[in-house]
């Protein structure tokens, strides 16, 4: 099992550009999450999904969009990138029966 796979690992964007961070999991988990982690800070929830076709906002959703068309995939879309979105983004998933999260390796995004 690959677990949770995120692409790309690194990306540099110019202000105003858009991009999609990809996340896929092969564990058949219903629940998926996107967190961002700023330097020296904890994890802040951006969006989450409890199953295909269902998404909900987390603590810091502004400037982001998500979709969940399949159980496996949960892409995060950044529209009109801003320097404040420079961060490390983690995707995570869990099964319905447990709260324990499995994280991807992260995507480091820099907006200049």
């Amino acid at each position: 099992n690959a677990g949770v796979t995120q692409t790309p690992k690194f990306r540099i964007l110019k202000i105003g550009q858009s991009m999609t961070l990809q996340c896929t999991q092969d564990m058949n988990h219903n629940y998926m999450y996107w967190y961002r982690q700023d330097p020296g800070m904890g994890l802040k929830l951006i969006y989450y999904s409890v199953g295909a076709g269902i998404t909900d906002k987390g603590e810091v959703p502004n400037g982001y969009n998500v979709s969940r068309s399949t159980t496996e995939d949960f892409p995060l879309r950044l529209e009109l990138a801003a320097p404040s979105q420079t961060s490390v983004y983690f995707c995570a998933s869990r099964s319905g029966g447990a709260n324990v999260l499995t994280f991807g390796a992260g995507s480091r995004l820099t907006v200049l």
Partner: protein
Amino acid sequence: GQQVMQIPQYQHVQEGEDFTTYCNSSTTLSNIQWYKQRPGGHPVFLIQLVKSGEVKKQKRLTFQFGEAKKNSSLHITATQTTDVGTYFCAGPPGNTPLVFGKGTRLSVIA
């Protein structure tokens, strides 16, 4: 909303010294989880505590859940350089997603 606070934010210890990080929630938790993130890595699940007053051990790591289920601690005995990283606690306020503390960054000086 629920807040999870961790102290200290940073801890520098000599190799062989003990280390403790504390986690406090503004609300009662159904369970609490601990994760470790190595420098440049991603959070990795360590343990989950469910019962009031529960104590669990993993080799040199001891985890405790408070009687009121609002606080928790992680204690590492005789730290090693492999213990370096940031330790996060996280709790679920009911059925909503996990809320993470800001973490305690541990540095171990050999």
